[in-house]
């Protein structure tokens, strides 16, 4: 097991390097140069060139990439073109906010979505099932930002019971988390329902009934565990969608998180900050995927078996 974890963690590194390569590669297509952005369009060209050389902008892409990785390992993501402060400083101030939102979003989605999906499956074709499935379809078709906007209109502007800006109290978390979770609740509900329906039809569930086992135990002990395996993977990927959705939610609710920071940085052409922010978010996503894989191996003996034989 430890070996599997180590192995998976190590295999993470090339992918991370690849992701950073892609992100940096795309960002390097930005017209203009750092010097221009930092000093402004009115600066004398010599000063711009000097600054560019200082920042290593004239180096070929690959060498800049290697330097970036080297600095990354030391915790240095460069300095923001706008503020001059280290990128890591800007990101780390805001990362906890965004990550908290994302985790809360996934958590709420799992707590609500999975039980409802299972209920739907066990009571297939009942009115509750039809209602839940329809609701899930609609939520799955709703952009996160629009859910947030409508929630603000209803709960903040019309009813005045929930705040709409910032995160200064627990109540402030309600609407943003709800918006983040909405899409994933729908996805989890539908997926749990599908896997549960499939699992209930499996032969080993019939075996359990043939033993004379009580129906409740058949569902919860035999069917549920098997049904939830794919759901675990989906939750991990949902986190990834959330990392993206966090951007929209932070915009709508004016929350000072990494998402908002990246958006502002894009408008300011602050390449260093944009790169740093996106690299951080993507890395977090990768780590979550790794955790999900490990979790899967812990739960499913078939996966353990496959990897046990690979040494």
């Amino acid at each position, binding site marked *: 097991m430890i070996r599997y974890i180590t192995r998976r963690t190590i295999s993470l590194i090339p992918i991370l390097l690849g992701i950073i390569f892609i992100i940096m590669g795309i960002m390097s297509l930005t017209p203009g140069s750092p010097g221009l952005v930092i000093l402004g369009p009115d600066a004398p060209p010599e000063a711009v060139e000097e600054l560019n050389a200082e920042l290593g902008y004239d180096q070929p892409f690959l060498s800049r990439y290697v330097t970036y990785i080297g600095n990354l390992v030391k915790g240095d993501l460069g300095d923001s073109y706008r503020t001059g402060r280290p990128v890591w400083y800007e990101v780390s101030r805001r990362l906890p906010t965004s990550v908290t939102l994302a985790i809360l979003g996934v958590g709420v989605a799992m707590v609500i979505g999975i039980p409802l999906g299972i209920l739907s499956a066990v009571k297939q074709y009942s009115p509750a099932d039809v209602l839940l499935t329809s609701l899930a379809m609609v939520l799955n078709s709703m952009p996160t930002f629009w859910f947030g906007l409508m929630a603000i209109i209803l709960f903040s502007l019309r009813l005045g019971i929930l705040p709409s800006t910032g995160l200064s109290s627990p109540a402030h978390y309600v609407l943003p988390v709800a918006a983040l979770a909405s899409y994933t609740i729908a996805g989890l509900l539908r997926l749990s329902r599908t896997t549960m329906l499939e699992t209930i039809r*499996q*032969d*080993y569930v*019939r*075996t*359990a*009934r*043939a*033993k*004379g*086992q*009580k*129906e409740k135990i058949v569902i919860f002990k*035999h069917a549920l*565990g*098997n049904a939830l395996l794919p759901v675990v993977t989906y939750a991990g990927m949902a986190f990834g969608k959330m990392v993206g959705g966090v951007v929209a939610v932070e915009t709508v609710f004016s929350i000072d998180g990494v998402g908002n920071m990246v958006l502002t940085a894009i408008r300011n052409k602050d390449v260093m900050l944009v790169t740093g922010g996106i690299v951080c978010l993507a890395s977090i996503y990768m780590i979550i995927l790794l955790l999900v894989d490990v979790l899967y191996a812990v*739960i*499913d*003996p*078939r996966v353990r*078996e496959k990897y046990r034989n690979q040494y």
Partner: protein
Amino acid sequence: MRLIPDLGIRGINMDDRLLVIENLKIEYHSDSNVFHAVNGISFELGYKETIGLVGETGAGKTTTALAIMQLLPERTGFITDGRILFKGENIIGKDRAEMQKIRGASISMIFQDPLTCLNPLMTVGEQIKEALEIHKESIGSVEHIDQQVNQLFEMVGIPPARGREFPNQFSGGMKQRVMIAIALACNPELLIADEPTSALDVTIQAQVLNLMADLKKKINTSMIMISHDLGVVVKTCDRVAIMYAGEIVEIGAVEDIYADVKHHPYTEGLFGAIPDIHTKVSRLNAIDGLMPDPANLPTGCKFSPRCGHCMGICKTTPPGVWKSGSHSIACHLLVKEGDE
């Protein structure tokens, strides 16, 4: 037409029958169609007796077995007529809790495909233990369940230490042994084996069948052996019933079916299809045609479209029963001959 065979072979009297099926009819309902899977079958099974249900896929054998266990798919499978008397009591009306007490403890079933019948996330030992734990009140011993689990492992020829492993670490034959251990854990009076060896290699088949024969003697279980393989049936059964399109067309003792002269044309077809190892032929003798669509059964005798001896009356009237001792056949041909 009902077909209640005479059980004179072993001198078992009327009160001593473990299982009596009377005129059982089962339908499957889909959105647009009604499938008549079982159309009025009747047979009886005594204690310590084994009966084989033989027929092609779709004859209704598994459906009958599931009906006895009351495990027909809830929304689509319905018993529309008849009685299933287990130890004298009709189990069709029983509610879920009562059936749960019967399943596993009095009537057990093993299924066709062992590969998918075990929960992949539970160890094998836990799954056998569960079979005991469910019925621990009725079988009376709470302690020593682990000991019993080990005994069961040994009984089916698996080292008890393997109880800690997961089903994916077992081969097909071993998984079937585990299923047998689960099924026999509480010493049921009736074991239904639905094609237990069809998914296994031939060599493993022999092993598993031998195991089942040994255990049957040890535990004195009655058994319903469902198979499409005549070779399997002759080795394990005392009596045999041939099913076609949801009906029993011929029933009798093993000697009657395998050695006697008179047979239902379908039975003749089944035996005729077995290649003779001593004769060289260029084509096998298949029975022409296919089993009828259960949603669209023919009137009269259901085998008439495929029967080489089909007469006019076969197409219009269901056949009567010809009986000779323990051997019964539902066919116009034989009834007519009997009259002469």
